[in-house]
């Protein structure tokens, strides 16, 4: 049952990503600023902590493939990236467990690195030619802000759907 709920929420968050992407790019003071939402990836990373890493890997394969086939020009980028980042998260989380602040930092940094990884692959394939500094100022930083906001929403959903709630917060 929990697996089905987690799956449905991942599905919904995928469309939350699409929705947020409609507002971007915004033109602020003559420059185009890009906000790249990554609610789905954040959710999958949190699932790897709160539910099970195996489930996370499965989710990232399914949704990564879906994203690739639906809106991707280059196949495999999302599938491979998501699985790799779930494994990173899993490794990182042996070190600091159950510390909220550390976890938020790790998730947000992984989101940042994920965007950089996609930027790197597109640069490698010569599909985009944005200078690295422009990338950091106009894409990476604003996306990090947006994702920090989305993180609150995703964190609540992840808590509600996970079993931690029953173990740690039984009396609330």
């Amino acid at each position, binding site marked *: 049952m929990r697996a089905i709920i987690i799956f449905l929420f991942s*599905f*919904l968050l995928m*469309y939350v*990503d*699409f*929705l*947020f*992407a*409609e507002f*971007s*790019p915004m033109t602020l003071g003559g420059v185009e600023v*890009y906000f*790249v*939402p*990554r609610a789905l990836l954040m959710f999958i990373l949190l699932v790897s902590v709160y539910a099970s890493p195996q489930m996370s890997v499965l989710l990232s394969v399914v949704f990564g*493939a*879906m994203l690739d*086939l*639906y*809106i*991707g*020009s*280059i*196949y*495999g*980028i999302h599938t*491979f990236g998501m*699985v*790799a980042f779930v*494994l*990173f998260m899993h*490794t990182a989380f*042996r070190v600091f467990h159950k510390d909220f602040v550390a976890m938020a930092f790790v998730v947000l940094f992984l989101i940042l690195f994920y965007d950089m990884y*996609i*930027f790197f*692959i*597109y640069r490698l*394939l*010569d*599909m*985009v*030619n*944005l200078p690295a500094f422009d990338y950091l100022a106009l894409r990476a930083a604003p996306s990090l802000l947006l994702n920090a906001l989305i993180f609150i929403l995703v964190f609540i959903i992840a808590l509600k759907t996970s079993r931690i709630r029953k173990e740690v917060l039984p009396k609330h």
Partner: protein
Amino acid sequence: MNRLFNRNRMLIILFGIIILIILIGFSISDRSSTTKAEQFTADAAAGSQMIIDAPLNFAGSIFTSIRQSFNAVEENERLKAQLEMLPQMQADLERLETENEELREALEVSSKQSYESINARVISRSPDQWLDNFTIDKGEADGINEGMAVMTTEGLIGTVARANGGSSYVEMLTTSVSQNNLSVEIMHEGNPIYGNIREYDTERNLLVIENIKNRSGLARGDEVLTSGLVGDYPEGLLIGTVVEVQNDEYGLSQNAYVQMKGNVDDVDVVFVIERNPESMEE
């Protein structure tokens, strides 16, 4: 960190990278059809997205109609004035069209310029926002095939890259994938001058056209159209206007910088152009 790089994991990661490279190669290669598995997955995503989007679109349309009703009276009068000339123009158009058809049949030629258009709505853009590609809500079932031209009301903007059952994936002219050697003609004082699209200059937001013959006399403001010589594109789809002409680095030919007519940032409704199949036989 040791656990991440033990032997099994190392193998899995290396294996994953190899698969990634194979997939990248597969997607860059020039394919002319879409596999059933791709079609199914993309259609499932598109279908569920349309369901989720429906209530949001409904709410959005209420707000737009409220906003539009404020200047409706003014607009109504302006449109009425235009409308009075319309019946005469339509009659003329029909007469000319039949006449054209008769003459063409008499000559037994098929026009490279004739085409039919299919209306479609943009349903999603990639949240990555790296490549400005998008998905539309019409697919193979509506007669869309890979390689067809996609236009807005202003001009050409892209090509259908993958046609699924009920949705299609469109690549923009501004991304390097779809502009490979798209042949264009530039109209200068009634004469076509041929060239092909090289790249999209992201700093100046202009399309670069190469291999234009020297001393062509191109000037600012000349119109750029598709030539109909390559692929499924009919002749005469408007792309943009020339902004600047330069000699290339060897002085053998000229490059033109072109301002695209279609607005690539804000696409909502598009037309997919189906070329008249009779003209493609030769």
